[in-house]
């Protein structure tokens, strides 16, 4: 796999300037500490682009008290956002995730990413595990391989699906190899204490567990080719799609397993699982469990299938479908509930991201959906919970999705934090706030079209999350005016006019319209352009003009 990072990297000027200033300050270090502190304050005041959020697309957010960790889509860099500050302070780590240093705290959260790829002659499924401790994130990985000669019939089903953590043990679920418990090393330099792990699973329609395979964490590949034979022998291995822990009773910890054939309960230390039905719900609707969310302290549990959801207020003893009452926008009428929902429970409120066509959250008080739109003159408890233009934070499906969420607390305040693709983080005070705030990544560009940036400058026509790639054009107007944006080649032959005399706001940090001011690599008749350098001319009605540049490498065919 070769990712397009071909452009030569150069050291940024702010970094150089900061380095120069801090070096100057070292001379004061042994003299007067007060001067030294003042000097260092001056030294680090150099505005650096890297203080911005790590990326616009945040893969995951995890919380650790007053901090949250926001991971970029690339999975190799992240930001730590400190919510004790107003506005929240951001420290971004652009390089690969650091390993464990000394003095680790407990592991608080866990994340998983996986992707398919090809290494030499084997098809691989690589799972990258990110662990969040008090003072940083680190990663470790497992690599499933399948030789080409074995075919790929079950390859797509063999990947990480979910994770849970309790104390120093991580529970990893895969779709075809069952699940495993991985003991973490609480003090050592490696995140995994015992690299060798065994996986266990159960057959479709059966309740007894058996070992599915052994493999080695971060050291040796997991050979999955034997799984086909095992599955054939037992009549089909159950697929683990979701996993959650109820740790209220430490003597009998419950592992909830969501499969393609329904919900299963397993008490750790036993060798059996038991099927749990949805009372009053047709069995056909209780299949294909996508997500299980458990609040051990409150004894509350949410279970999401591919089209239904249920709540239990008694640790899974009874499950019920929440009544669809209240809100002017009924949950049953919300469209787009086809991706795996995400939820977290805060007190008696549950915040659910159904990943709808119109991104936003749906709130439940115990098992009742709250109003999510305001009727005339009617007070609402939590106000508008869908992100839209009224929040000045419009996020459309075209622009991105809400991918993950968490909560963070400092003092008496608690915020819910959403990770989005394309628009950074959204957060909101769960008690007093009725509007969303946003943290994104945006470069400061010079005013009056003195600087026009294109991002990404390298147009590859790659699809990102199934969406076509665009080159976006960033600029800043002195005042409100109309702009015309034209794409031209090196010979100044016009390729396409993106917008003509379109009104744009000036005077702020940026003026572009994220939907209109972008190029899809096509000419005015919808045909892909040849490889080469293309120029973006941004002309405003007040006489300012600026240039941006694009390197198109997608090719015509």
């Amino acid at each position, binding site marked *: 796999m070769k990712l397009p990072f071909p452009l030569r990297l150069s050291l940024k000027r702010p970094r150089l300037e900061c380095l120069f200033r801090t070096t100057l300050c070292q001379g004061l270090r042994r003299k007067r500490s007060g001067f030294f502190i003042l000097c260092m304050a001056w030294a680090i005041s150099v505005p650096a682009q890297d203080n911005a959020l790590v990326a616009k697309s945040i893969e995951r957010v995890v919380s650790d008290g007053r901090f949250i960790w926001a991971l970029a889509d690339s999975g190799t860099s992240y930001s730590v956002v400190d919510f004790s500050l107003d506005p929240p302070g951001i420290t971004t780590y652009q390089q690969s995730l650091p390993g464990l240093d000394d003095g680790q705290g407990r592991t608080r959260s866990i994340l998983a990413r996986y992707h398919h790829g090809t290494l030499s002659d084997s098809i691989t499924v690589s799972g990258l595990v990110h662990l969040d401790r008090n003072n940083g994130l680190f990663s470790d990985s497992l690599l499933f391989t399948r030789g080409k000669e074995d075919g790929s019939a079950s390859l797509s089903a063999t990947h990480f699906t979910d994770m849970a953590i309790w104390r120093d043990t991580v529970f990893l679920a895969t779709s075809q190899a069952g699940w495993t418990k991985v003991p973490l090393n609480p003090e050592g330099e490696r995140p995994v204490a015992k690299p060798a792990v065994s996986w266990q699973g159960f057959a479709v329609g059966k309740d007894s567990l058996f070992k599915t395979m052994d493999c080695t964490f971060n050291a040796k590949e997991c050979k999955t080719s034997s799984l086909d034979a095992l599955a054939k022998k037992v009549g089909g291995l159950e697929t683990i799609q979701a996993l959650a822990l109820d740790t209220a009773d430490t003597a009998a910890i419950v592992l909830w397993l969501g499969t393609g054939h329904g919900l299963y309960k397993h008490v750790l230390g036993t060798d059996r699982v038991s099927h749990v039905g949805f009372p009053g719900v047709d069995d056909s609707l209780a299949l294909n469990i996508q997500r299980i969310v458990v609040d051990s302290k409150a004894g509350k549990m949410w279970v999401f299938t591919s089209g239904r959801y249920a709540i239990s207020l008694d640790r899974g003893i009874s499950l019920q479908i929440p009544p669809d009452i209240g809100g002017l926008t009924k949950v049953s009428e919300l469209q787009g509930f086809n991706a795996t929902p995400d939820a977290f429970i805060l007190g008696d409120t549950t915040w659910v991201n159904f990943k709808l066509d119109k991104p936003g959250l749906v709130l439940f008080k115990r098992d009742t959906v709250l109003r999510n739109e305001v009727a005339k003159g009617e007070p609402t408890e939590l106000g508008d919970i869908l992100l839209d233009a009224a929040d000045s934070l419009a996020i459309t499906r075209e622009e991105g999705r809400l991918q993950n969420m968490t909560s963070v607390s400092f003092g008496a305040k608690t915020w819910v934090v959403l990770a989005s693709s394309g628009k950074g983080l959204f957060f909101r005070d769960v008690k007093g706030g009725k509007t969303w705030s946003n943290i994104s990544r945006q470069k400061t560009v010079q005013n009056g079209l003195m600087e026009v940036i294109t991002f990404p400058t390298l147009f590859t026509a790659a699809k990102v999350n199934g969406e076509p790639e665009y080159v976006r054009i960033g600029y800043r107007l002195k005042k409100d005016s109309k702009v015309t944006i034209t794409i031209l*080649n090196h010979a100044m032959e016009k390729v396409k006019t993106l917008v003509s005399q379109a009104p744009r706001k000036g005077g702020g940090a940026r003026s572009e319209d994220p939907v209109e001011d972008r190029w899809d690599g096509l000419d005015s008749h919808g045909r892909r352009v040849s490889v080469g350098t293309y120029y973006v001319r941004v002309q405003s009605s007040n006489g300012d003009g600026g240039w941006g540049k694009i390197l198109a490498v997608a090719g015509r065919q």
Partner: protein
Amino acid sequence: MKDCIPTNQAPIRLLASLLLAIAISRTHATSPEVLGAHEGWLDRMGTGIRELGRGNTGTLIEESSAASYWNPALIGLPKRTQIAMGADARTANRIGGFASVQGRASGQLGLGLSVVHRGDFDITAYDADEREIGTAKPQAIGSYLGLGLRTSRNQSFGVSVGWYSQYLDVGDGIGDVNVIGLVNVGWFRRIGDRFRVGAVVRNLGMDGDLNASFDQITLGEETVGGFERTSQDFWPKTLVVAGAWQDSLRGRPFELSVELLNYQLKPDLYALDANFHAQRLRWGGEWEAWPALQVRTGMDGMNISAGFGYELKWRRRPLHFDYAVTLEREVWSVNPMSVSIRYEL
């Protein structure tokens, strides 16, 4: 007045037929290809500052220093060997230059070489998160080696072979191009004392359909992240039909040139569909306003240009300075930094 009328009507009929065919094809285009989206921009920008000052009309300039680029039929016409070089800086940090040499190899045969360069040294690149990731310096060079043959006092033919390199500077050879075998075929004819005509077929290639096509590494759309693949592209075949009229204005020589270009934007031997043809008109005038001082103007498509040339003697040989200023009308940018020198040995 009688001298002004061409006596041989055959070339005129041929040119008229070509012009009519081009005009008809233009009227039938319903969804035409966009010329700017195609390769071959280096060729379309022309070369030579004298030619630039008169609207890039270089197809019939008998003493053109870069005849191997413009029309290889012109190579053998000047008696003296010429060397020339120039530079052309334009808005948005676009830069360019050329160098050429040509002369007679024998009484009827001429040889010429032209090298054209254009590029950009300042493309600041950002990733999707607006993080600066470096500076790219893409460059393109086209070279033309030509041979011209005079078949009579008033007529000549020529052929040139070109090679083209594009370096996009994005690493791993992505987007880079190396084409050898761009063929230009030219014809030139004087008709009477004041009228000249010519035609050039540019950017022919070596494959079965005479296409100048090439492979290049691109990043495709099928996969996330953009993985490498090999794509094919081509330089559009171009037909140039040109005519020039010489007269005197206020007792000094004056010349008006008109060129019509037809670009075929499909890699077929000949594309019948009018949508795959794009046309451009160039015209230019040159007047000797003062002894040794020529003033020029012209239009290349919508772009307006003007310039002047001054001739002096250096070691008893003519040394020419040329200057041009261009207005690129699509973006209304004025480019005043185009200069060259030309020396006759």
